[in-house]
């Protein structure tokens, strides 16, 4: 790694080389070199002989640690102990695991001598569904229309908010009801949500289950005060660097307040105008109190990322959005805005706008701009949009990569194949697959089998009534010939394998998938052989099933419910396998990045060019409809009994758009391309706040008609 020492400013150097016991609060806008300071400070401490294993890097989200990982992995970094990199959730989980025997009883777990089970979002939703479903039949939540899994996730979200904001989970409904300004009769849904949250917490304590909220509460209330755990943390982590502290919730800030006086050194880094993760409880306001716990406060103001022209454009939009805000450094210079927009006369329809965007990307690359210096940002990246853009760019040989936070596991063809074959291999579940699903599974499972042959084969060999497959050699010879003996032979291998499995006692579903994949589907001649995508999806499905089994297997067994059957039904209901994270993706170094705007911000990197897609969309600022929870009302600063009004909603939208625009602008070095079409992705006409703000900015600067 080339030394960057000669590129650092005196301000940066003074923090990096500050005394080894310095406690510094560093703030500044994105692109002012704060994270560079964080990275170099750690390297300097290491070079000064501070053991890496005495350092903790705390980040709100793993992606934000990327520059630190890069430096720590470099061969030029000093040898020694490894620096610990954690999120607050990771720290809480680690402490619960280590000190469980000491606190499990006092924390109220019914079986303190049994190990804890950590719930994923998926298994937490399943347990919530298990408890709430009977209540829905009794009339709970009947006055609202909402998908069930969204209902479950919002109740879980309320519990998480209570944990990270730091109020008792029993006060959720009181807070939500007091801010409700709609029809009085509707407020009872908050009581329903409270009842479900209480039920879930009790169930977790009875079964040693820990969702995210309980991990945080156990850590905060029982582990941090426990002498053994407290000493462990103080002895092991003597030096702290916390980046993007504004993206953390109040409980993390409370912890840092308590921890800082006991640390040898600390560097807290605050990104001004950020706080993008408000929906997870991020609270820039409580973060500010940390300033007083540091001996030195430093502000960086020189931007190394955005050009003056780009900043000027950003300021103009910001001023247009919040004209009453006089605190910003908003100055509209008479310099051209470095922007381009799609021609209004030829991009009426959404696909036309996509064509224009792809054309502009191609021109930039032709001009020598590296693809990795281009990002395409939207408010929400649907599968359809991702596909459309990727296909268009692929055709031109332009590499792309995307990192949507999640995508549906159950919609993957490999998943459907595995689930169909599982249903077939477990006739006692009473879930025989349809002929359509089975034919589809055969196409995926047997390489070279087309739709016509698959349907023909299924029609002949499968009887849904008894869920059994008949042998290939019982098919008429002329039909065998039509299907081909080669494919028939593969079918027969699969049939015999399934048949042999049925004769034995059933295995756990995840082990069944391991075996089906390894012994059949990935073998030569079968559809998953050398298909790495199918391997990846299968691995994810197996992981999902395994975690499901570990979390709920015992309870289901006690109730006499086959776990595999329950899993399949929950997949059908959309409770599990609805979304999952791909394994940590390796970023392709030189490819156009397609992402939702907030995902890009949480990667904290700057690029030369940004494309903002569909700037008329309301998705750029509107909150997702969440009738059962509320990030603002459940924050530490909302006054009890103050109603949340439409004006509050408008202000919050405007404020979040303001932050978003400035965050994007500060991560753009050369220019912005604005994609707009008269009709949006769904075919509706839209003129949202962002479009209006840009329009006003251009007009007031006299730069556009």
């Amino acid at each position, binding site marked *: 790694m080339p030394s960057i020492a000669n590129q650092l400013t005196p301000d940066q150097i003074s923090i990096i080389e500050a005394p080894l016991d310095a406690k510094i609060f560093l703030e500044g806008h994105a692109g002012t070199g704060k994270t560079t300071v964080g990275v170099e400070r750690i390297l300097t401490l290491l070079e000064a*002989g501070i*053991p890496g*294993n005495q350092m903790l890097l705390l980040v709100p989200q793993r992606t934000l*640690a990327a520059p630190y*990982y890069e430096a*720590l*992995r*470099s*061969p*030029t*970094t000093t*040898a*020694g*102990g*490894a620096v*610990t*990199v954690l*999120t607050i959730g*990771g720290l809480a989980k*680690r402490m619960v*695991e*280590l*000190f*469980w*025997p*000491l606190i499990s009883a006092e924390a109220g777990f019914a079986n*303190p*001598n*049994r*190990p804890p089970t950590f719930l994923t979002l998926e298994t937490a939703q399943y347990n919530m569904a298990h408890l709430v479903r009977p209540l829905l039949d009794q009339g709970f939540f009947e006055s609202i229309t909402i998908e069930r899994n969204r209902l479950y996730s919002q109740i879980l979200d309320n519990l998480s908010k209570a944990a990270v904001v730091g109020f008792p989970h029993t006060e959720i409904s009181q807070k939500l009801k007091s801010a409700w300004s709609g029809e009085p009769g509707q407020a009872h849904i908050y009581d329903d949500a409270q009842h479900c949250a209480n039920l879930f917490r009790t169930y977790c304590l009875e079964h040693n289950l820990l969702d995210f909220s309980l991990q945080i509460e156990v850590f905060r209330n029982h582990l941090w005060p426990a002498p*053994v755990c407290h000493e462990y943390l103080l002895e092991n982590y003597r030096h702290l660097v916390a980046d993007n502290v504004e993206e953390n919730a109040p409980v993390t800030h409370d912890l840092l307040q308590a921890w800082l006086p006991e640390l040898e050194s600390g560097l807290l880094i605050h990104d001004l105008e950020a706080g993008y993760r408000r929906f997870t409880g991020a609270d820039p306001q409580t973060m500010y109190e940390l300033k007083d716990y540091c001996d030195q406060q430093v502000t960086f103001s020189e931007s190394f990322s955005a050009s003056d022209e780009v900043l000027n454009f950003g300021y103009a939009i910001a001023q247009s959005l919040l004209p009453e805000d006089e605190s910003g450094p908003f100055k509209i210079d008479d310099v051209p805005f470095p922007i381009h927009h799609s021609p209004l006369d030829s991009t009426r329809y959404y696909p036309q706008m996509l064509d224009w965007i792809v054309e502009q990307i191609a021109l930039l690359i032709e001009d020598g701009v590296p693809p990795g210096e281009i990002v395409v940002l939207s408010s929400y990246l649907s599968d359809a949009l991702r596909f459309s853009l990727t296909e268009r760019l692929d055709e031109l040989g332009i*590499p792309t*990569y995307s990192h949507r936070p999640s995508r549906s596991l159950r919609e993957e063809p490999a998943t459907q194949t595995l689930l169909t074959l599982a249903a077939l291999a477990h006739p006692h579940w009473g879930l025989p697959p349809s002929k359509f699903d089975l034919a589809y599974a055969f196409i995926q499972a047997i390489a070279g089998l087309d739709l016509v042959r698959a349907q023909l084969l299924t029609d002949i060999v499968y009887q849904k009534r008894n869920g059994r497959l008949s042998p290939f050699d019982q098919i008429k010879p002329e039909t065998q010939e039509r299907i081909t003996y080669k494919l028939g032979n593969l079918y027969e291998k699969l049939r015999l394998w399934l048949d042999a499995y049925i004769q034995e006692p059933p*295995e*756990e579903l995840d*082990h069944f*998938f*391991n*075996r089906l*994949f*390894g*012994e059949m589907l*990935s*073998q*030569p001649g079968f559809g998953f*052989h050398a298909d*790495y*995508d199918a*391997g*990846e999806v*299968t*691995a*994810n499905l*197996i992981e999902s099933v395994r975690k499901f089994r570990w979390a709920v297997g015992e309870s289901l067994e006690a109730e006499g419910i086959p776990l595999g059957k329950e899993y399949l039904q929950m997949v059908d209901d959309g409770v599990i396998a609805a979304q999952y994270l*791909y*394994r*940590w*993706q*390796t970023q*392709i170094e030189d490819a156009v990045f397609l992402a939702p705007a907030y995902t890009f911000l949480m990667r904290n990197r700057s690029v030369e060019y940004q494309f903002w897609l569909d700037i008329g969309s309301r998705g750029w600022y509107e909150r997702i409809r969440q009738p059962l929870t509320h990030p603002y009302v459940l924050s530490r600063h909302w006054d009890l009994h103050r109603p949340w009004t439409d004006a509050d909603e408008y202000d919050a939208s405007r404020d979040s758009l303001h932050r978003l625009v400035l965050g994007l602008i500060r991560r753009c070095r050369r220019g912005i391309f604005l994609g707009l079409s008269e009709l949006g992705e769904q075919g509706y006409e839209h003129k949202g706040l962002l479009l209006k703000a840009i329009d006003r900015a251009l007009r007031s600067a006299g730069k556009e008609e």
Partner: protein
Amino acid sequence: MPAPIDKLQSSFVFSQSSLQDYVDCQRRFQLRYIQQRAWPAVEAEPAMDNEHFMQRGLQFHQMAHQYWLGVPKEKIAGQVKGDKILSRWWKNFAGSKGFEERNFQNQKPFPEISLSAPIGDFRIMAKYDLLVIQPEGKAIIFDWKTSRKRPKREWLIHRLQSRVYPYLLVQAGAQLNEGEPFKPEQIEMIYWYTDFPDQLARIPYSPKQFDEDQAYLARLISEIQSMGEGEAPLTEDERRCRFCVYRSLCNRGVEAGPLEEAEGDWEAEGGFELELGFEHIAEIEY
């Protein structure tokens, strides 16, 4: 889906298990670490026994860690009352005179500590179950082994773990020794088997061994760096393929081998040792 990767990323961090994979089968290394392919076949049969075996291994490591952090023995023991095997392991550990607290009064135990150091254009990393620094400056590396068989010392000596761990302690352990690098002759590695508590496998280190290891590891990494983009050669020892998840991809068999036969070296084979990277340290304790 991520696009295929043909070359080892510059940020890759080597460990004893990734290097052991390379030595055992270059193709396995290529698929696992360069291309990062998930290939979820059964590793050993019966699958459930294998799962229990791995879980117990993890849990034992955690219990040992808790012990060194000061969690009372009886509290730790309470967690495994219903599991005969784990209870036996714990009894062997807790009853072992060698691990009694009084023996460590003037010593510095470092449980679950990770060290890393540069090697060529990369870094190498290891997570030690327990490092003990004795007053006279001797450093002992303890490694807990939960396999049912106790392999021969000769076999252990040649494992990458026995070479990487002491080598890395020399290279990266100065901060644990008042700023002075350990001399190879100050280091000893001890494998402690949960089912053979009195049969320690002690492997002393020496300057000669350090020189050999340094040259050997540098050569291995240089070889890996120069791997071409084509398919790497498969192992000549096809018995290994029975316990390798990629066997179907390489047309090297259908069913997984029996756990009984694999267990001797299962831990070191990567059966439960998780591949370590800086990002994993953040998420996974063991």
